[in-house]
């Protein structure tokens, strides 16, 4: 088993922490993992991305060109990373704010309207865990029991009161993710 993925979006959307929760969960389940952020002067509002590798073998390169899955959370990231999905791989995106949709036919394309759902639930901060839930529905590489621990380990203690809401968001993400195009 080896999953190489990139998560990309605006700084502040929880891109890096989504990757961290996944990496932590994978490690707890006994996999080898790596988490490599793009780092730069950008903070909130700038672009951010993270490369996560989860594998049953030691991770050789933490730098990946073609990914099994790419999760994009804004238009810039979609434009930049659509080409980096392996043929037959998965592209997951939130349609909020997207005007130019993906065009590739050789990959699976999923949408997840997490921005809208979070707004309905009245808590925009559940956005990234909902996205993670969507991803785990498509690629169930880590069991929920480890995801829960990974989530807790990734959050500072002062945020532990939000754990139940985040766990619920992960489950809901799995319910709302939709396959819009199957790889040809």
């Amino acid at each position, binding site marked *: 088993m080896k999953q190489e993925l990139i998560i990309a979006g605006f700084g502040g959307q929880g891109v890096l922490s989504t990757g961290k929760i996944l990496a932590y969960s994978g490690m707890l389940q006994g996999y080898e*993992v790596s988490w490599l952020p793009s*780092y730069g002067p950008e903070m909130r509002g700038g672009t951010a991305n993270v490369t996560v590798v989860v594998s049953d073998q030691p991770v050789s390169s933490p*730098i990946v060109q073609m990914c099994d899955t790419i999760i994009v959370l804004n238009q810039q990231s979609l434009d930049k990373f659509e080409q980096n999905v392996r043929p037959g791989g998965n592209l997951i995106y939130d349609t909020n704010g997207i005007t130019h949709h993906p065009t590739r036919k050789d990959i699976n394309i999923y949408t997840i309207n997490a921005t809208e759902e979070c707004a309905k639930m009245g808590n925009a901060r559940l956005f990234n865990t909902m996205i993670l839930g969507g991803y785990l529905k498509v690629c169930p590489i880590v069991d929920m029991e480890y995801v829960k621990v990974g989530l807790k380990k990734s959050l500072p203690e002062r945020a532990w009161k939000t754990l139940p809401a985040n766990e619920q968001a992960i489950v809901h993400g799995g319910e709302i993710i939709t396959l819009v195009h199957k790889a040809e």
Partner: protein
Amino acid sequence: MGEVKLMKGNEVIAEAAIRCGADGYFGYPITPQSEVMETLMERKPWETTGMVVVQAESEVSSINMVYGGAACGKKVMTSSSSPGISLMCEGLTYLAGAELPCVVVNVTRGGPGLGTIQPAQSDYFQAVKGGGHGDYKVIVLAPASVQEMHDFVFDAFDLAFKYRNPVMILSDGVIGQMMEKVELAEQRPRWTDEEIVKMHSSWACTGKTADREGNIVTSLELDPYAQEQFNYKIFEKYARCEQEDVRFEEYMCDDADYLIVAFGSSARICKATIAQARAEGYKVGLIRPITLWPFPSKKIAEVAKRTKGVLVAELNMGQMVDDVRLAVNGAVPVEHYGRTGGAVYTPDQVYEALKNKIIK
């Protein structure tokens, strides 16, 4: 088994410093290594082990605080990134000239000048040539994983005290910023004053007693012949280091027709390249120098001569390739592939270079 955590390379440097019983860290923030001091400040080791952590007013000040701590026989260290390391090079040659042990971590970024904040390996020359002026060497360890960031802090202090010489951990923005699984060592106690006197009173400023001469820690010598004798002496030490402490990793070299030599993060990327190449029937092996000085010249020469050619992949315009060419000494072609300025190649790009330059 020790405590297992998911941590950034930079955080692990701090954690390992505390756990190996270091006495002091003196630093100044710079991307991409600022998490080293941030982690130390969060961990507050002065409340537990008694380790001192100081944010100095500059890198020049940090390295001279290191000099002061080292002169007292303490386990002291600093960390920085490329431009900051340049500022410390005067201190490094003084430390080597005074035969003082210390650990310096460089989380390299793109240069020259202030350059970029993205990963690079363009400080290879600076590190292995010592950085400062005069005849001296710095022992250089190049970690390729977060686990090695941890382990090499322990190893670096061992080597620093074995040879009474600065040891550098030459990392880069990939290894510093990356999170991986790491197994942390048990907390070791700091040396007590009595232990330091017992081990280091022959050279360190541990407080002069009536039964011995005072120790003078200096790198100044006004008599050229005495300086010459001193230089011969430290180079005997370096010759011993070349005999006893060369380290490298050999990966799939037994049947290799082609060889890649790469260090640190590049070696990780090249392992993925090798998987691609072998899937297409090309037998490629890797030598990863772990000590960049002393350099594993003998091993590289021995493996290279069994192959048809060597590619040196490094995130610079061609630095370690010089040492590989000296080692191989014309036996087979040696080519360089690099990206520079903070750009990082992917396994595919290294594979393309391997096909274009070596396999043909």
